[in-house]
């Protein structure tokens, strides 16, 4: 598997650290309540198809990336810098 890092170009997946669903971007407020925090921490879909994940180019530039890919076709559509994503 290869991921195109916006800073470094196309690199082998061994250079990257995988975190999980990009849901981690949407951190609830401190007082959002137990339900919201429980969802944020633990509830994840297990999609057959399109996913948005967080990967860190740890053995490269150190950037955290949002990688859009397909778990069925294994296609990797694109990777964007998490820093640049508007929230």
């Amino acid at each position: 598997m290869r991921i195109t890092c916006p800073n470094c170009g196309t690199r082998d997946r061994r250079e990257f650290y995988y975190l999980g669903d990009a849901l981690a971007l949407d951190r609830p407020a401190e007082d959002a309540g137990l339900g919201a925090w429980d969802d944020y921490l633990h509830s994840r879909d297990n999609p057959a198809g399109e996913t948005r994940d967080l990967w860190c180019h740890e053995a490269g530039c150190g950037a955290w990336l949002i990688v859009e890919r397909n778990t069925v076709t294994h296609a990797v559509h694109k990777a964007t810098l998490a820093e640049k994503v508007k929230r």
Partner: protein
Amino acid sequence: MRLQAPENMVTFTFDGRRIKGVPGEPVSAALLANGIKLVARSFKYHRPRGVMSAGAEEQNALVTVGQGAQAEPNVRATTLEVSEGLEVSSQNAWPSLRYDMMAVNDLISPFLAAGFYYKTFMWPRSFWEKLYEPVIRRAAGLGALSGQTNPDTYEKAFAFCDVLVIGAGPAGLMAALTAGRAGADVIIADDDTAMGGRLLRECEDIEGKPAREWVLDALAELDAMPNVRRMTRTTVTGAYDQGTYGALERVAGRFAPDKPLECFWRIVAQRAILCAGALERPIAFPNNDRPGIMMASAVRAYVNRWGVTPGKAVTVFGNNDDAHRTARDLAAAGIKVAAVIDSRDDAKVAGDYPIYTGAQVIATKGRHGLQSITIRHNGGTRMVQTDCLAMSGGWNPTVHLTCHMNGRPTWREDIASFVPTPQSIPGMVTAGACNGSFTTAACLAEGAAVAAEVAAGLGLKPKVTVPDADGTAYALAPLWAVPGKGRKWIDFQNDVHVKDIKLAAQENFRSVEHMKRYTTQGMAPDQGKSSNVVALAVLADATGRGIPETGTTTFRPPYVPVSIAAMGAGSQGKGFAPERFTTSHKASVARDAPMIEAGLWYRPSYFPQMGETHWQQSCDREVGYVRNAVGVCDVSTLGKIDIQGPDAAALLDFVYTNMFSTLKVGRVRYGLMLREDGHVMDDGTTARLGDTHFVMTTTTAAAGLVMRHLEFVLQVLRSDLDAKVISVTEQWAQFAVAGPQALALLNTVLDQDLDDEIWPFMACGEVGVSGVPGRLFRISFSGEHAYEVAVPSRYGESLFRMLTAQAEVMGGGPYGMEALNVLRIEKGFVTHAELHGRTTAFDIGMARMVSAKKDCIGKAAAARPGLSDWGRQQLVGLRSTNALTAGAHLFEKNAAETRGNSLGYTTSVCYSPTLQMHLALGFLENGRARHGEVIKLRDHLRDVTEEVAVCDPVFFDPTGGRARG
């Protein structure tokens, strides 16, 4: 027999017998040239078997190469190159290939039919492990591993290209020429020792000259192009995501010790062109497995390419036009063709030898080598004397790689074969015989056309020129199995025959996938290269369905077996694991300190002195240095992260539970870091060097983790914060100087004497260290008056030598990890033994460190019910007069030592020379309320039971006066 005496010959051995061969030719060719027909015993029935093919698809001729630790089993004799001194042995036979005791399996074969294991060894259950399995394992199987460490070297490597051409036959060569001429970066890989594919094995012309000459011209042109790389002896074994291909290169024979044996490549290609050719398939006729019965294309390959004739009187049996090439080439080479049997009634063929059309081979004779065959023809039978039968059931395109990403090939009725389904592998196209285009003309044309498309897709401007070649179409009439008495083998490597597949169908294993598992067809190293389509056809017949309705065939990587040693090259033993050494490493080793691993780091365990016979003596002495005089310890392995920016303090407030924005410049604070789920991630001290400048320390183990975490926070959660982090662990050498004499010792190396007023406990700042700008932190991990002094790494070694030498003058010296551990246990300081991922701030008694004034990572989750209940297991100290163990469980004094009664466990233990007793840190249910009670420690693993007194985890100097004083 050889057609001509070769010039260069070398000697190798087969089962100890000395054999002459031509260097570089396959061992199978040399064996055939020396009249050796019997080369192996089959997997299950131990039937005598001979060479069947001339390539990677070989099912029978598996041999072991080399001896002892270097022995490599299951090597195909058809791809193993002859070299001087090569040692080759047969497998799966005892005591010898000719008289194999296990051949008794063949006599009792009716009892060993498909599904035999499932049916026979079901009962009684207990017999399976003790009796059946060991016996079966000994009897079955192919070559055996030596069980010793493999001393051979292997390599792995990466390559990148625009276009990867897989296979260098007519289609592959044309593809590489076309893409190369257009300017693409091309890698062309082929598993053979020489490129050319079938052109090296056939008698035909291209552009009016012998095809082999055309190949030489093409290779010369490719070699002249700097943008083309040719890789021979390289089998592309798998197709993976995003244009990544695995390939195994057989780099050197066993007699080139300066080179690796094999190299496993990962080739990343923008586009790939599969030109893998086709594999001829056998016909299932009775006793079609005798040594001497071979694939027709292999027979003529041995004659045309290596000048070796596999027999003196050769017969040919086929269902297609191609088989007749073998008869024609052999006759032209002066080899006797005893008969050609074509199963088609309407075959229009001619030749100067007996031809039987509408005929079939229905029996064969010769136990260790073929002697005769029986032909059914015109309602009668006829026996023909022959020592080599060349068979051809048609050709299967080599679709393997197109299946590696779940692609399924498509059935093509006209050639009775599966062909690749387009776009099965993103970025890969197919050309030539692997695409079902079997004539040389079609291969050349397709190779060129496909490569032109690919090159154009890459933005290049290709030109297509196609040389003239033979375009005679190939006709066949399917013939899968010939009726008759005797076993008709389909999967030679796994000993599966027609009746096994019919039995599977009869027992309702009618799906291809079920049939395969029931009969084991298509398993073993060969993975059904030659047998899958025949097996499918026989299953279709047995279940009364057509082939496309019955199913399809598929292949998984790798195409040929790849040794684990090649895939794991560089990972044997220590492999490429990096080693991190502190600046004091040499000095520590010179003091005979045993070095222990701490992650990738190496740290001194203790510094032995003359007369000490046990580490405990050294450790006790070193603890004494710190408690009574002064000790020096290298703490450079702790993670050091430099944090700068206007929001540096805000970042720290967010990642630590406690407040850092209130920390004064020139001061250090202990910080606790949680994971977002509320459990402790790491701890350490952070110093404020300036308004917008901090330096954080992490534990040695969590340095990388914390760094990634900080980047995550800055980039993902709080991109609003203006701060940058960078690891400076390698840049600073840092030493703890601890003990009542710490200040005195430091003053011997500092440019200016320290003033205790300016340098109170938890102060930090810049200092001059023997003329070098350094940093000083008044922090203590031992509970004593202590400092950590840091200098740029290049001065680390000399500072360590100065500090230790001076410490020794003052009655102290260096201390290692053992003493460091005792010192921190005495003080109840936690490490990752306690912060093991399941403890909360509450558990370690630091709940108050979670600031109520701000949000931080883990704060919301740490407030969840259950994470701070008094019933939780809480950090406690445990004392005893006897030695304790870590990992032991805690029980009420009179409780049974069962899992249900466990109240907690120990995490760290030591003997405290300071307090002269054994100490432990551990977690105990409601532990903080139980100080003063006596409970029981039980370690089932080490068989230790002790009564222990529960106490505060800070065993020594609970008020902390020594560190502040």
